[in-house]
């Protein structure tokens, strides 16, 4: 399941809903991304996440399909927020449940790595020097490249 929303999410409720009643699930891996108060050495008081409505959902749905094709998942979930967020706020949740932990771990890692380089979101940070668009990191490209299918 994918969701793109402004509202916060309840991590516990989301994870519980993924596994409830499915006793074939042996492992649930999740990643939560949080707003940091320091980025590139600068204090960040808040950030605004802009996205491309329509393309975001399309891209997230495609990558979730790919994860489900590549790993035997019982459940998968991507929630990505947009709008104004403050330090400590949740930005993104990626979770994968599977009979075995390797699939759950790899699919979850794949999804967040992919998301970082392909999902059309952009962060504008409020810093003491004003609003600053966050630069993409080449380390994120390298992380995503790892998952390319040969």
């Amino acid at each position: 399941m994918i969701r793109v929303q402004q509202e916060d999410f309840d991590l516990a409720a989301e994870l519980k809903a993924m596994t409830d009643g499915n006793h074939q699930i042996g492992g649930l891996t999740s990643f939560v991304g949080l707003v940091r108060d320091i980025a590139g050495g600068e204090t960040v008081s808040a950030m605004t996440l802009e996205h491309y409505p329509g393309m975001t959902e399309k891209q997230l749905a495609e990558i979730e399909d790919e994860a489900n094709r590549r790993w035997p998942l019982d459940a998968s979930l991507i929630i990505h927020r947009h709008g104004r967020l403050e330090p400590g706020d949740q930005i993104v949740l990626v979770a994968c449940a599977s009979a075995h932990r390797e699939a759950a771990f790899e699919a979850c890692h794949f999804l967040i790595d992919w998301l970082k380089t392909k999902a059309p979101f952009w962060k504008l940070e409020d810093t003491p020097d004003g609003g600053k668009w966050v630069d993409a990191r080449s380390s994120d490209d390298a992380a995503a490249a790892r998952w390319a299918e040969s």
Partner: protein
Amino acid sequence: MKLLYFAWVRAKIGIGEETVSPPAEIRDVAGLIDWLKARGAGGADAFADLSLIKVAVNQDYVELDHPVAAGDEVAFFPPVTGG
């Protein structure tokens, strides 16, 4: 043809969205960018360094040689920074 701009590309162009009718000889993304640069209105600034620009046609990532046609939704934006 609907054009969308996001993040600092939007800031440089000055608007987030517009509908344009480029001349018939504009057949691909590269041609469209050249036309937008020549048109002014922030285009020259926004597209000064194409290594910083990602393009999507109808919500899929494409390269500069990808065709564009009337009715397409073409989006220009910097490398993404979500997650």
